């Protein structure tokens, strides 16, 4: 059987020529997440053509989201069910048709997908989206515009924070969530003549609203 | 200081001027230069073509030639590197391995060696020229040539757009892949000539042969003496003359 043969060959190889791994250097200290965190995030997002709008309170957040929808010309939206407490996004997007994110086919008709990030990484400008029952993965993927809310408490230095974040999300069986996506800027390609184009398969536009209060 | 000079086979028979300039510079800087007899090749050709047994035989020969203690100096990065590779050719724990390790520990590329001499890098040499340097990948990123040349008064050191890019020689590579080799060579030659230099300089004899032979064949080498080894530039700067004469004269 292939499995046994493969494992046996690997074991024989390591027995014939043992491989010892030198102790790696310690991981360098991460960026500190301080009062300038929003500014750092905005700076790293800017070259990715992503605008960060920071809201001081739920009303401001609603205004930002409505502005984005208008600016992007969206007529319909779909969103994750569980949103940070105290935010009425349906009121903010009252002029748009809300569609249910039941399946990919449905979402393919939607102009704007609204999600929130379990974390955002200052080093790279990455949003950490963890899928779940109320949080379909395609909301951040199929619509041409993706809007993501980022709570202040979710700002983290870099990708080295991911293992711990994921571990905290383990279900009762100890399983990790089925899908975690790091989203860093819009969908992009430079496959034709190395000319950068946004929005090849995923959203061409990504807008982020920072929630600058304690949720 | 007494040193043993290791002369690459290419220099011994085709580019002796480089060796003579190296001797002149080293003596001028206070070294007593021995040239142990019976030198052939460092074994690089065999090693790089996969003939490890052949390389080992040549390494044993070199171990005999340079058995005396004291620094071994070689005006070629690739031959120096080969001598430093000798330990890899012998079983650890054997006498030959120990000798190879010992030799590898006291071999220096010419520029590195000169740079470590008292008074370096400014030995008071002067040469009014625009010199385009080919760094040569065979020097493993050493900046010794740049530092030595920068200290020569009156000399303007120029570096091509991609200073560390290979000139396309690669020993047997240039024979097995002649068109690819020539493409790389053309890239290198045109990047160097774009600097409008008086001199083409390198610390690697094989690169120098490759580049200047190409320019010479194509009539783009205006006048003899335009391609020089770093040792020759220092010889000119310190002694006012090319002890061994010019290349391509």
């Amino acid at each position, binding site marked *: 059987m292939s499995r046994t043969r*493969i494992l046996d060959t*690997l074991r024989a190889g390591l027995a014939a020529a043992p491989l010892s791994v030198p102790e790696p250097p310690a991981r360098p200290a991460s960026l500190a997440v301080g009062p300038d965190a929003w500014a750092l995030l905005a700076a790293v997002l800017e070259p990715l053509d992503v605008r960060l709008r920071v809201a001081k309170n739920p009303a401001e957040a609603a205004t930002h989201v409505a502005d984005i929808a208008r600016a992007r010309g969206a007529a319909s939206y779909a969103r994750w069910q569980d949103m940070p407490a105290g935010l009425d996004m349906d009121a903010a997007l009252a002029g748009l048709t809300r569609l249910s994110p039941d399946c*990919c086919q449905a979402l393919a008709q939607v102009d704007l997908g609204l999600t929130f990030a379990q974390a955002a990484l200052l080093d790279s400008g990455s949003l950490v989206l963890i899928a779940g029952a109320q949080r379909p993965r395609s909301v951040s993927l199929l619509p041409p515009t993706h809007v993501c809310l980022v709570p202040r408490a979710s700002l983290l230095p870099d990708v080295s924070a991911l293992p711990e974040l994921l571990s905290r999300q383990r279900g009762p069986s100890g399983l990790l969530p089925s*899908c975690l996506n*790091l989203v860093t800027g819009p969908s992009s390609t430079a496959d*034709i003549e190395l000319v950068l184009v946004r929005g*090849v398969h995923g959203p061409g536009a990504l807008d982020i609203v920072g929630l600058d209060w304690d949720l | 200081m007494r040193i043993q000079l290791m002369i690459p086979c290419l220099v011994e028979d085709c580019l002796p001027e480089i060796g003579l300039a190296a001797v002149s510079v080293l003596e001028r800087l206070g070294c007593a230069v021995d040239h142990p007899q019976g030198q052939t090749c460092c*074994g690089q050709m065999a090693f790089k073509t996969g003939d490890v047994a052949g390389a080992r035989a040549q390494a044993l020969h070199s171990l005999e030639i340079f058995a005396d203690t004291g620094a071994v100096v070689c005006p070629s990065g690739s031959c120096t590197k080969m001598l430093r590779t000798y330990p890899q050719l012998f079983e650890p724990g054997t006498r030959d391995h120990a000798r190879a390790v010992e030799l590898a520990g006291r071999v220096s590329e010419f520029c590195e060696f000169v740079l470590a001499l008292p008074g370096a890098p400014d030995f008071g040499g002067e040469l009014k020229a625009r010199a385009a340097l080919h760094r040569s990948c065979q020097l493993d990123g050493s900046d010794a040539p740049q530092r030595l040349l920068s200290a020569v008064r009156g000399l303007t050191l120029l570096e091509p757009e991609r200073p560390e890019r290979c000139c396309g*020689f690669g020993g047997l590579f240039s024979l097995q892949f002649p068109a*690819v080799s020539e493409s790389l060579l053309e890239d290198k030659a045109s990047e160097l000539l774009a600097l409008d230099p008086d001199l083409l300089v390198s610390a690697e004899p094989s690169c120098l042969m490759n580049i200047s032979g190409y320019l010479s064949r194509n009539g783009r080498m205006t006048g003899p003496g335009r391609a020089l080894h770093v040792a020759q530039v220092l010889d000119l700067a310190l002694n006012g003359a090319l002890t061994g004469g010019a290349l391509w004269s």
Partner: protein
Amino acid sequence: MVLTSTFTPRNFREQSERASHDATLRAVLDHATRYFMGKRGAALEAFADRDTHFARARSARLTALSRLPDLLEQLERSASAAGTKVHWAADAAEGRAIVTGIAKGCGAKVVVKGKSMVTEEIALNPALEATGAEVWETDLGEFIVQLAGEPPSHIIAPCIHKSRADVAALFREKLGLADLSDSASIPELTLLARRALREKFLAADLGVTGVNMAVAESGSVILVENEGNIRMSTTCPPVHVAVMSLEKVVATLEDAADLLRVLPRSATGQKMSSYVSVLTGPRRADELDGAREAHLVILDNGRSEVLADPVLREALLCFRCGACLNSCPVYQTIGGHAYGSVYSGPIGALLSSLLLPAEDTRDLPFGCTMCGACKKTCPLGIDHPNLMLRLRERVCAGKPHFIGAAHAFLASHPLAYRLAVGAARAVDPRLDLLPRLPGLPSGLASFVESRQPPGLKSSFSAQLRAGRKKQGGA
């Protein structure tokens, strides 16, 4: 530019020589390799503690190799616990059989694929098509070369050899867009591809992708991309198959994070690729999307044999950032197709030599000037030139190259050496006869044709002796 897929590693030398004469190809390669090197250089310049991050990344990969069999078993356990079905494939044929079996099992009519070298390696597409399914490459570059019937030419940018007009012509013909003008802009062309492929994603029964890393401790598969097509392929179709070459496993999420710090920066100069997916098992019962059925195929195809060689196994550290390709002067000159297999450039020459039949790959390790640009570029510290030498040794195995052998003989016999050089010096000091000597390879002839040989002069030893005698006498 139109390329056919008749390239083979066996004809590497001829293909390289021909490619180096192709001015259009060289211009494209020059543009592309400079573009990637420029982006990468800028990103690494700004990467604080870069060398420490590189060292940690290397350590993560070394750890994986040092515990490979145990980690693969652990991966199997944890992935199975998450509901992923794990398969083992000893070779390409078994890999194809497993995936086509899954395709038939789910009655797949439409298959969407994310960019994957390994599925290319096992020639999966023709096998899937033979089941009657439509198979779509969905990475834009891969889609374009698929429509053109050509192999990809670069790990990161598969269709760098195509101009926008080439792409417009192709879309006109293959996507039935009769009105499409040659002057269509690149964003327009991209949008057309988006529309065409969107339909396929929504209709797909099966998504097939490669794997950038698989995490032994959690059973997760990690996929890294910029376009979103891989997310589509794992999200929309009901079944997802991830095909993984066995060395891609890493021990922990920590190790994966260390690698993610380095991979995008080294590949494309991005701090992070647009999308990184960490998938653990199929969708859970309460989720609305994602594949309902997840498969992981662990492919060997010659790799396990490599682990016993302490030098060559370093090639298995590679995480396919492609930086060594862009930095290699030979690759910059000949491009990817000349290598004649899926993997090109320095790491490609190594991998192909290790994975393909020895008689087909004899020339690959010789297509290298030993300049070391690859080694210097590699974030994982792979010493490509040293591996090339090891392969050259293997190719020669007691039968060294003619020129090398003659030279080696002479060089270890000083007297014979001096006699040979002396004879040459007497007969042909300018080496004009050299290219015409019988039995010498044509390469030598063209070497001397394009370069004036320095000729044989009075030797250094003789001149030094004479000079010293004169000095002593004076």
